[in-house]
């Protein structure tokens, strides 16, 4: 069975989605203070790698430990909703069909909410 990564269009598609995703995050006053300007390039790269693994484009578990990576950030429920919304919008604007979008979001939200399980 082809991976979600392949069906989403592979590395170039993921990179484009992540670029758009971060553009949205850094324009949203609800979350923008969580993203330090100088760290953005490395965050984008890490996000591409993370999503690639999450969608089965690379073996194993996404290497970043989500719980550790977000420790001390004091993230609110509203912020989680906002961030997931931006990712969904980025996928949608990239022309990803609704069913694939749903599957992609389902993986991402599961990995997020299971981070401290």
């Amino acid at each position, binding site marked *: *069975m*082809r991976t979600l990564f392949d069906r989403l269009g592979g590395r170039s598609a993921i990179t484009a989605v992540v670029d758009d995703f971060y553009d949205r995050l850094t324009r949203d006053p609800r979350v923008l203070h969580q993203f330090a300007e100088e760290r953005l390039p490395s965050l984008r790269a890490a996000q591409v790698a993370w999503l690639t*693994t*999450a*969608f*089965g484009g690379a073996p194993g*578990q*996404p290497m970043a430990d989500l*719980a550790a990576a*977000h*420790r001390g950030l*004091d*993230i*609110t*429920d509203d912020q*989680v*909703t906002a961030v*997931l*919304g931006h990712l*969904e919008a980025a996928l949608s604007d990239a022309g990803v069909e609704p*069913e694939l979008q*749903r*599957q992609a*979001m*389902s*993986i991402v*939200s*599961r*990995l*997020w*909410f*299971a*981070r*401290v*399980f």
Partner: protein
Amino acid sequence: MCDKLPSVDDLVGRQAEFAAIGAALRRPDLAGALFIGDAGVGKSHLLHATLRHAEEAGFVTVSITGTRALGDIPLAAFAALLPGRPAGDAGDLVQIRRALQERAGNRPLLLGLDDAHLLDEASAALAHQLANDLTAFVVGTIRAGEAPPEAISSLMKEGVAVRIPVEPLDAADLSTFAEVILGQPVSDDVAEQLFLRTLGNPLFAKELLLEARSSGVIVDRGGVFHVDGDLPAPSSLSQFVDARLAALGDVHQRAVSLVAIGGPLEIELLEQLVDPDALVELESARLLTADEHDDTLMVGFVHPVYADAARRAVGRLAARQMLRELADALDRRTPRRPQDVLRIATWRLDGGSLADPSLLAAATRIASSRNDFDLAERLGRAWFDQVADTPDGLRAACRVASAYIEQGEYGEAISILADPRVRREAAAPIDRLRGAVIEGGMTFWAFGKVAPAIEMLDAAAAELGGAHPLIDATKAAIWSAAGRPNEALALTPPGSPAATMPAGVASDLLALTTAGTPALALQRVGDHPEFVHTGGAIAAAAHAFALVETGRLRDATEFALDGWERAERAHDRHGCVAWAIALGWADLNAGRRRAAEQWFDRATTLAERSAAAVHGTRWALGGLLLSRAQDTDPSGALLVLDRLSGVPPHEARAHADLELRGRAWLRAVQGDVDGAVRELLDHADEATDRGRHASRVRYLIDVVRLNHPSEALAHLDSVPCVVDGELLPTLIDAIRAAATADAAGMAAVTDRLAELGFLGYAAEAATAAWTMVRDANGETRTVAQYARRAQELREGIDVHVTPVLAQARPEISLSRREREIAELVAEGRTSREVADELIIGVRTVESHLARVYVKLGVRSRTELADALGLLGAPT
């Protein structure tokens, strides 16, 4: 939002299992986990702790439970998620999936499957699908030694779900567990005896402790429980449970038996049959428990070991009696949900009482709509037996016949339709129509006979006073599958009612494609977007074929792969066959022989046990035959012929074209090229007569490939050939270019085919173009360029030795010195460096190099490196 969740403190000795479930949830490649262990070991406990914990973490959770009593009723476990409608339809599965997705919103969904080994097949299949399409992460429990439904075990086999074994507790944990149960610690004596008796099974331990406390065998002395004598010594948990149930009074036993036979049961239903006080007492005795599902209180056992024990204790006659009582009680309730209809009907059947025909009719329809054809057949049979000689007889027979057909049991389908009790003339016109469509369709699809099928349908139409859109659409579908597009298209003129029925759209799609106008076919389907989902497997595969024939090879592969995955998830065997054949065909066209053969092979295996047994098998074997024969593998092709001889004949056409081309190619590779060409030309003429121009072009291009282009052209020009799309016109150009030795035209054909992805055809066209310029004594540089193009394309395919390619292999030979110099230059040296290294003059190097450029048809050093790569190792 907190960074840490409270630990699960009521789970003694289960840290490892709990960590395992957390780790599984964080693995993106998993969509489920299954706790496996003995009865009473604590699997459900772990599941419920997981669900609670997940809710705290932000998951949305839904839980369903399998029970032995309802294991035969499709979707019983998911019933609470179905809206209460009067009757089920084909949308039940879709509705549940949508309801779950809505409930989850943007939160992840955790679906609990308690006692997954007891789930009904439909619920299990749905759970499998929900995990695979990532609607939910599934966490289930399975009792060790029990066989779960195939859909559940395949979650583990496919690696979608991980197994988490749940072992008995060790002595220390069991002692802690005893303290949790009693609220106070136990002495070492108690702990030791408890472990010896129960071997660490927590449910067993809990039962023993509570029993021992109430009977005074263990007593509290200064805050610690000590044993006064010996703990009771049943040999097993089930023996202990049997003893507990045997000690109950008659009233209580009756309540327990009813729940074991029919449960879980609605409280109002149960209260009609037993004393409500008894239920309250059984609840406080921790045997029964009530859970709310969809605003209804359902009464079940606290643990399935009690259900098992209670079932064992009920005699068969008593069980029948109770099923009848349950059916009567549920029958009095209104409104009825689909679930209730199914329960009443099956309880009446199993209880040996007569059910109302209208109830059985409704139940049969619901069972079919939930894809439980086994149950539909059983219920429909009971319905039929009551109404066979009434005006409803034919309708019942049609329902049962459809259920048989879905299971590939054609003989049974025929015999119920031919039952002497059925009075067709008394049946409603719509039922007579249905009967004719089922019989006609079966005569063609299952038994491969066109004429009798059409006759049957015509007779039915005449009897009903003329044409009917359903009859026309069915006939059209048969004609188009039988390779008669003109007849098919005449029955479904654009805008006619027949043209808008699923069978009519499918027929148009196939007919227009084989007629040589696949682009028009796709346009026609474009007007019915819903068709892709409702037209069935054959129709969807026809869509993939239209995409191939129009030249959209990559789209076809993409579309068919998606279809294959959907069919695989839905356990739709028939669909898998159609998609695998479509994928094989696409790969064959792309020049990927090995992949094509794998798909055809897979289709053959799957077809053997499906409703598409004969034509599916012949079709897949036809593809295999063609692939092997074209690739000069006569022994492989003969093996396929041998397999084909064991499959009954079938008058469907799609496979016949593959098979006939394969037979002709085999003849050619066995040395009789002229005979092969004659065969192909005959088939081309037959295709022309029938209006199948797509097949005609394919036959004629084969004639060209066997080096008889002028015959091909003559047969092409005999009757006008109107084709659309990208592929077929290009193939016609190839025939013309070959017949007129038009090298430039053939080169243009090569580029077009390569661009579309038809690399096998492209490689042959390039080789043909090269042969033409070579034979025309073209300029050496031009010949070399053509040779290089041919060489390049041959690298991209894994069909190496079709006869065309075998007899004309571009030979590009460099002298030893030329090669030596070329390789050094390709590595990046300058002419001066090469001259110095070989101790020759720069001018000599350059004159060698000039000859190399001409021979290889290259113009730059970069091109030189590529060309050398293609040339391979020096000979």
